[in-house]
């Protein structure tokens, strides 16, 4: 059980780092949804079923929806940063 939770937390951190690294904004939003999904599973293991339901429906569903609508109305890719 401990090994399983270590794996879950590692997946969550890798997804968060890839949300920072991806240049295509749609990929970054999918990585953010993966972080929310793994957080919902960890909430279940922390004996919090109400919070797990809320995080799964709001974090993984609605947040991804509003991000996709916002990306559709603006740019799709992150522009390459000019040298500061």
């Amino acid at each position, binding site marked *: 059980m401990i090994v399983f939770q270590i794996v879950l937390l590692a997946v969550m951190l890798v997804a*968060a780092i890839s949300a920072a690294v991806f240049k295509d904004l749609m990929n970054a939003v999918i990585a953010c949804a993966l972080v929310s999904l793994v957080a919902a599973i960890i909430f279940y293991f922390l004996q919090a079923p109400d919070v797990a339901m809320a995080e799964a429906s709001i974090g993984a569903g609605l947040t991804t929806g509003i991000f996709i609508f*916002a990306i559709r109305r603006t740019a799709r890719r992150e522009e390459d940063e000019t040298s*500061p």
Partner: protein
Amino acid sequence: MSFVADYLHYTGCFGLVLIGLYIVLVKSNLIKIVIGINLIDTGVNLFLVSVGYIQMGTAPIFSEAQAAGREMVDPVPQALVLTAIVIGVSVAALALSVAVRLYEHYGTLDLSRVRELKW
């Protein structure tokens, strides 16, 4: 091994908060910054619920088949986090509407270029 079991969730939450903070500090695309704020929210919510966890505890619901003798985990951080999740999504929605209006006005989402356009 008990050291790992005690501190495992706290390190995961702190890592998530630090990654979100890195995104907010370094990236210049506005939607990326809102993603970073969302990651910080998720990390803090995970931390709050893991503070209330008791080893070998059970969920705070009375059921007819509830195991007797196991203590319930703390319900107050769970009520707090329930509110915080909904507020997090509404803050992200408001920030994204600001980003959409900014894009319609300036034509770009890059914050460094928006600051240049100001002058």
